[in-house]
């Protein structure tokens, strides 16, 4: 007979109660697992998309506000802030810069509010700045009415090269001159057009959303940033892509806090459930525990037995929670994508990982150990004589 077997047998005596307690641990562990996966996945996806994949190292934006810049670049909104196109020449003349991409971003929502199209006016410099921006079908803009579609938007529109697209909001017809190769980035959902066309459509001729800069040598980013700042007016700001991604993650902070509060509530409920269950177990088995002490069980034996029973319940609940987390995480990712955050990077934003699963399991088991302390101490403190005499 092993203590573990005795603990398992004791749990089997009140199966419904044990299952309900394990279920509360399961919910807490699953919540933790999902939230950690989302938190990590979203941060990584934002960094991957804005820092690693774009090939852009610096952005020139109006004023020193990375969050505003992030809003402009990432969400496609038409910010009231803008950059004068004359700055492009200053940037191009700065030593250490490989390519400069002036761009104008704007978004149009259909009149019924069901769909928002993101438009980006660009120059041919996009080919140098963004190595993954590759035209798979068709070619470069033929004239001012041409557009190049991201792979996803082309798929949604069932558009082919040469097709004509009509924008109700812009009251303009465009001709598709090219379709991009799928890049699993924000580009897949963007409609690209010549820069001057975009500027004309939003009535901002000679003005830009921002300027994207690619460096010849990334290790010189600090030097180049200083040089570039020296060449432009102090009304403008030079922001690294990393700061930009941090700006986007700033939008996510409130959602993140709500998610972690949910985890806290789930664990709080679980803690009360476990302590309550184990205290009931101890109260119901006082005479039996007294008897175990009669046959030689010491204080530490009783402590170990009750802690083990709690741990088994928490371990089973934690394992269930981690498994549930693996299945729920992709669904939670879709929910987050659809409702909770403004900027959604392409690709997966919630990927379950072994590290998150292990951490969630450890937290569930650790919670079990803490919850076991008081009931186990109560059980270990039972004086056999008093219990057998009074009950």
């Amino acid at each position: 007979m092993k203590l573990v077997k005795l603990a398992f047998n004791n749990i089997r005596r009140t199966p419904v109660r044990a299952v309900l307690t394990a279920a509360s641990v399961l919910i807490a562990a699953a919540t933790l697992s999902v939230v950690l996966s989302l938190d990590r996945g979203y941060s990584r996806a934002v960094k991957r998309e804005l820092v690693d994949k774009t090939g852009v190292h610096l952005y020139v934006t109006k004023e020193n506000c990375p969050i505003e810049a992030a809003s402009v670049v990432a969400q496609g909104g038409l910010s009231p802030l803008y950059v004068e196109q004359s700055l492009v020449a200053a940037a191009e003349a700065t030593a250490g810069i490989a390519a400069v991409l002036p761009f104008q971003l704007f978004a149009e929502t259909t009149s019924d509010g069901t769909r928002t199209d993101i438009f980006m006016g660009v120059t041919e410099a996009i080919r140098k700045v963004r190595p993954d921006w590759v035209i798979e079908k068709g070619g470069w803009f033929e004239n001012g009415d041409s557009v190049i579609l991201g792979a996803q938007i082309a798929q949604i529109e069932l558009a082919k090269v040469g097709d004509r697209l009509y924008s109700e909001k812009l009251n303009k017809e465009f001709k598709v001159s090219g379709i991009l190769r799928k890049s699993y980035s924000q580009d897949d959902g963007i409609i690209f057009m010549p820069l001057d066309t975009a500027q004309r459509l939003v009535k901002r001729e000679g003005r830009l959303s921002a300027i994207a800069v690619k460096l010849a040598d990334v290790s010189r980013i600090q030097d180049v940033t200083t040089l570039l700042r020296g060449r432009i007016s102090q009304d403008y700001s030079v922001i690294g892509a990393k700061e930009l991604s941090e700006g986007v993650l700033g939008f996510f902070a409130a959602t993140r806090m709500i998610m972690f509060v949910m985890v806290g509530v789930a664990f709080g409920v679980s803690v009360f459930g476990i302590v309550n269950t184990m205290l009931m177990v101890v109260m119901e088995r006082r005479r039996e525990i007294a008897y175990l002490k009669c046959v030689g069980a010491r204080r530490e034996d009783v402590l170990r037995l009750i802690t083990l029973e709690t741990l088994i319940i928490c371990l089973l609940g934690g394992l269930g929670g981690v498994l549930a987390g693996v299945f729920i995480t992709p669904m939670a990712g879709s929910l987050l994508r659809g409702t909770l955050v403004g900027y959604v990077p392409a690709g997966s934003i919630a990927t379950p990982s072994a590290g998150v699963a292990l951490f969630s399991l450890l937290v569930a088991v650790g919670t079990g150990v803490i919850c076991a302390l008081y009931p186990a101490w109560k059980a270990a403190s039972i004086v056999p004589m008093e219990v057998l005499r009074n009950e």
Partner: protein
Amino acid sequence: MNSLIALEKVSKFYRRGSEEVHALDGVTLEIAEGDLIAICGPSGSGKTTLLNIAGCMDHASNGVVRIRGEQVERGSERRLAEIRQSLIGFVFQQFFLIPTLTVEENVELPLLFSHRKADRARTAELLESVGLSHRRRHLPNQLSGGEMQRVAVARSLVNDPKVILADEPTGNLDSRNSNAVVGLFESLNRKGIAIVLVTHNPDLAARCRKVVHLEDGKVVG
């Protein structure tokens, strides 16, 4: 015969609410190897308290308790647990069998705490001695009251005790099962194990070689 447990002028007081209860008052008693003792008396006379102090489950308020000549000190819970494991077997009116363990697992339960390896042959031998070999794989809820008490007796023997302290062991049994359990105790006693029975039952007391009468915490006969 060698003394196993000796109580010298043992008193026990405890509080029950605002009332101070004098459960034992200057009791002297010796339990030696091979004894068969009945402790009798009305309810509240201190029988169970006496058994618990003799069984190292409780400390005396006054007086001395010696186990094989060694004086039992207050506060040495570990030592008391060791004494209970190695010297004493307990049987109670309520059988305290673990409902999810089989008969043989219940019998082996005390070994878990004395850190001795379970020996299935020895368990089988014990179950044979209480006439329950055929029930070893059964769960307690498949047994009669008498059978459960016989399992409890087998369990009390698993650590090879020198003395069995039994508190109202036939209190929950009909006369047929009572006789069977008492017969079992007599048989164990013939093998040299000292038996101390707390009982209200005069017929059971009459079968013991020594009877201690308690009244208001004092030995009166």
